[in-house]
């Protein structure tokens, strides 16, 4: 056991934890004033629900002994009773529980990202049930596939910090959910402007800050690999912010501060799977492409009239997809043991695409089914009057500002 590695992993877990409420603020600033509490509360609840689920059985499903490549299971992991002492082979230099909680905060934010598609219309009770089902049926298997010695791991798919597990899965799940839950009342008819952009920028700051734990923490040690991941993370975020800014400047005449923020997030998403495999110059490319790509994905979504309201699909889904592929392009031995397409490794490139597509298909389909069933059983949406008065009043009995 290494105290430096442990210090870094615990600090990273704390950083990643902050990302979930950070995301709540990021999203909360973009909805209308009457729904801001609902939006932030869903992030808090995503975190709380997954925190309990993970302790009880989520970790066992994701990181227990492999069962047919699809799911994990390990009795002694239930309730963490067998993990109070010692280490796991996943991270031999740190206490088992440090690894458990580091993984927990990833599971939590992934669910929180999906709330994008629930904005301003999801029933609180339905959200709670959805949360438990989704994290168990979508997140846990995917985490197992890639990180828990599941079939994608065996295939050799690379995902340093969760481009596939976290971002592709949440982004495409949000898309599926958006189709099932339907548009907000008035979507496309009248404008629904963000009620508090500084709140969104604050959320962006907390996300960027926390992302250092997300990516550099995923080295699971405090050394050269963590440092590379740290630099790559920051570089891609910066490149993404600038790229989105210039793209929207050219296309719309003015660069919104929301675009700068969204571009940073796009860059962060895209570098996530690649952070420990590529060099800083590649990170500039990865981030900049992400900024432009996600911007156009957003425009595409809007042009199709799809109300995936806060662009989890455009930014996390598409950004994560690009990142997964980019890892297969830019991976270099100068940083880690793997090479990508530019070093002639076609195999890695193909594996990355297989991994990404499998995750997209699985996340989209399972989410769609969960959402359809829930909609039939209990209804996903609030009633029309409730949507009209806003979810803060109708779901929480509160008014955000007075």
């Amino acid at each position, binding site marked *: 056991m290494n105290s430096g590695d442990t210090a870094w992993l615990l600090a990273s877990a704390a950083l990643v934890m902050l990302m979930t409420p950070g995301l709540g603020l990021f999203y909360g600033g973009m909805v209308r004033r*009457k729904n801001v509490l609902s939006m932030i509360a869903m992030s808090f609840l995503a975190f709380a629900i997954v925190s309990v689920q993970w302790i009880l059985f989520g970790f066992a499903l994701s990181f227990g002994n492999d069962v047919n490549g699809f799911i994990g299971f390990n009795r002694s992991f239930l309730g963490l009773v067998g993990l109070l002492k010692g280490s796991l082979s996943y991270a031999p230099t740190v206490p088992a529980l440090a690894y458990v909680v580091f993984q927990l905060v990833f599971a939590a934010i992934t669910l929180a990202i999906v709330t994008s598609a629930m904005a301003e219309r999801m029933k609180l009770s339905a959200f709670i049930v959805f949360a438990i089902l989704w994290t168990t049926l979508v997140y846990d298997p995917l985490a197992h596939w890639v990180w828990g010695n599941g079939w994608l791991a065996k295939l050799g798919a690379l995902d340093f910090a969760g481009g596939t597990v976290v971002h592709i899965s949440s982004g495409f799940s949000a898309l599926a959910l958006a189709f099932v839950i339907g548009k907000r009342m008035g979507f496309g008819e009248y404008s629904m402007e963000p009620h508090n952009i500084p709140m969104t920028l604050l959320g962006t700051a907390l996300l960027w800050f926390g992302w250092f734990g997300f990516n550099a923490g995923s080295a699971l040690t405090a050394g050269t690999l963590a440092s590379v991941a740290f630099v790559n993370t920051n570089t891609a975020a910066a490149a993404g912010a600038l790229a989105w800014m210039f793209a929207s400047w050219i296309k719309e005449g003015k660069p919104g501060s929301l675009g700068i923020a969204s571009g940073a997030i796009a860059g962060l998403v895209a570098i996530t799977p690649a952070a420990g495999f590529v060099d800083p110059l590649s990170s500039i490319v990865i981030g900049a492409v992400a900024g432009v790509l996600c911007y156009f994905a957003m425009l595409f979504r809007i042009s199709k009239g799809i109300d995936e309201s806060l662009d989890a699909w455009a930014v996390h889904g598409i950004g994560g997809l690009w990142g997964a592929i980019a890892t297969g392009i830019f991976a270099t031995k100068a940083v880690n043991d793997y090479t990508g397409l530019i070093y002639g490794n076609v195999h890695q490139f193909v594996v990355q695409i297989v991994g990404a597509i499998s995750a997209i298909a699985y996340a989209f389909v399972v989410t769609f089914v969960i959402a359809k069933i829930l909609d039939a059983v209990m209804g996903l949406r609030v009633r029309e009057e409730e949507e009209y008065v806003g979810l803060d009043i109708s779901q929480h*009995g*509160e*008014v955000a500002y007075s």
Partner: protein
Amino acid sequence: MRMVLAVIRPEKLDDVKKALEERGFVAMTVREVKGRGEQKGIKLQFRGREMEVDLLPKMEIYLVVSDDKVDEVIDVIKKSARTGKFGDGKIFVIPVEKSVRIRTGEVES
């Protein structure tokens, strides 16, 4: 001159503005208010105390126009602000005796 004062749904402001603009009514003043009409509101609890938060967010918009334009303005607002559901709002007409443009000192009455 008359002030046409309308309390409308916040979501309809853009439509109303556009409709007015098209008819040449550009000048206006707008502000956020809370209100309720005849129907009663919604109950709300906070930290163990019950209270009524039945006042819902609305937009108030007013235009001061010459007397012969009042009916047209009312008509435009009525059409563009309407959804047919409770909460569509109200229009009030208030007499204005005089109006002064600060920049030029120009007086209309």
